[in-house]
């Protein structure tokens, strides 16, 4: 359902050239959740952006079944208009994602309920607390019932309770027919949800395998070794 072939991408030229993707290839089927762990600058965001079609890679190809309409994105930017209400935002994005006009309102209400912010529907986004605004952003990502979810450091700024809630939400989402790609620098955050684990460093996957029976601590240790060692060499 999602595949990447030989992705290469670099920014800048000459002395300032940064390789963000270096021959990355993988594919995911429905039901898989890939957690990509890597330090800042490893190229995780670039990879997600290439998958989402935001960046055209210098070389290689990325395909997502269903195209942009099937993708839900949660990243650093809220994608919400501050002076519109939560519901107005959702209706706008639902329209862009071709949710039929007849079902938009009901879908919006359902999503708001799912995230526990139904009572804030008529509130302007700028007036929401950070936690609530984040839930609204998640609602926006899910409003069109995407089959692929791309998450770029989604736990940033979430307190423990909110993070646990988000993990529960993701677990519900991970049902049949869905693919999730989660990128984060903190192994503890996404590892329980993952069916597959990858370590990214310097634009490359230095590890890619199903999670299998490994415990989170184990994976964390492997990650430290895989990424830490490279840092020592570098």
């Amino acid at each position, binding site marked *: 359902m999602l595949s990447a072939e030989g992705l290469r991408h670099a*920014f*800048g*030229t*000459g*002395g*300032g*050239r940064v390789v963000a993707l270096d021959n990355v290839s993988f594919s995911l089927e429905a039901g898989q959740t890939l957690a990509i762990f890597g330090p800042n600058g490893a190229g995780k965001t670039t990879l997600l952006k290439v998958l989402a079609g935001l960046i055209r890679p210098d070389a290689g190809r990325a395909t997502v079944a269903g195209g942009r309409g099937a993708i839900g994105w949660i990243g650093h930017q809220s994608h919400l208009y501050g002076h519109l209400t939560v519901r107005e935002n959702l209706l706008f994005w639902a329209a862009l994602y071709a949710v039929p006009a007849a079902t938009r309102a009901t879908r919006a209400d359902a999503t708001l309920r799912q995230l526990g912010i139904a009572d804030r529907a008529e509130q302007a986004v700028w007036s929401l607390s950070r936690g609530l605004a984040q839930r609204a952003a998640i609602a926006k990502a899910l409003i069109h019932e995407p089959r692929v979810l791309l998450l770029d450091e989604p736990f940033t700024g979430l307190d423990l309770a909110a993070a646990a809630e988000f993990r529960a939400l993701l677990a519900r989402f991970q049902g049949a027919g869905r693919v999730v790609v989660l990128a984060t620098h903190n192994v503890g955050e996404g590892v329980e949800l993952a069916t597959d684990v990858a370590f990214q460093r310097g634009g490359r996957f230095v590890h890619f395998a199903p999670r299998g029976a490994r415990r989170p601590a184990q994976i964390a240790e492997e990650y430290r070794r895989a990424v830490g060692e490279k840092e020592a060499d570098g």
Partner: protein
Amino acid sequence: MSLVHKGRRITLLGLVLLAGVYVRALAFTPLERFQGPAQKIFYLHVPAAWSAMLAMGLVGLCSILYLIVKDLRFDRFAAASAEVGTAFSLVMLTTGPIWAKPIWGTWWTWDARLTLTLFLFFLFIGYLLLRGAVVEPGLRARYSAVLGICGLVLLPFIHLSVYLFRTLHPQPIVLKPSSPSLPGSMLVTLLVSFAVFTLLYVGFVTQRYALALQREAQGREHA
């Protein structure tokens, strides 16, 4: 021979020939009956304006090619062409009024050629400013290309606007437009001047392009 040297040779040749054109225009071309010696600037102004337009045309062409092929060489050439075009336009815009004041008593008129060159100048300046404001080379090339193509398409509209304006508002003619049939000797001087200016254009752009290449190479070394 390196590109820089080639460029320098061509430019030098062009400058020498330019001096030759001066001499020919002043000494060996007959005086125009109605305008007298003042008319001789015509042999330099027309080709200079033409070179500026050529520069813009090539900026536009390279912009289109860049967007299709994404080869940065086209972008580099367009940038070089824009800089040379700016220089030519500036020369024309400064010599125009300086020459016009003693002859016509006014610094500026909305003469067709001057006006077009003025807006060409603004286009070039805008283009260079845009390039200066974007740091990432790929992005810069893309944005410049968009502007370059728009600039190219704008030219005929400006030309038409000036034409429409002038047919309804007769202006003093500072630079007499070339009459359909110039007497032989004048025509020759004009054509030679065209050739020399084109040569100068090629020389300058080659130098500028080579310079850009050098700078990029240095940038890579200082990595």
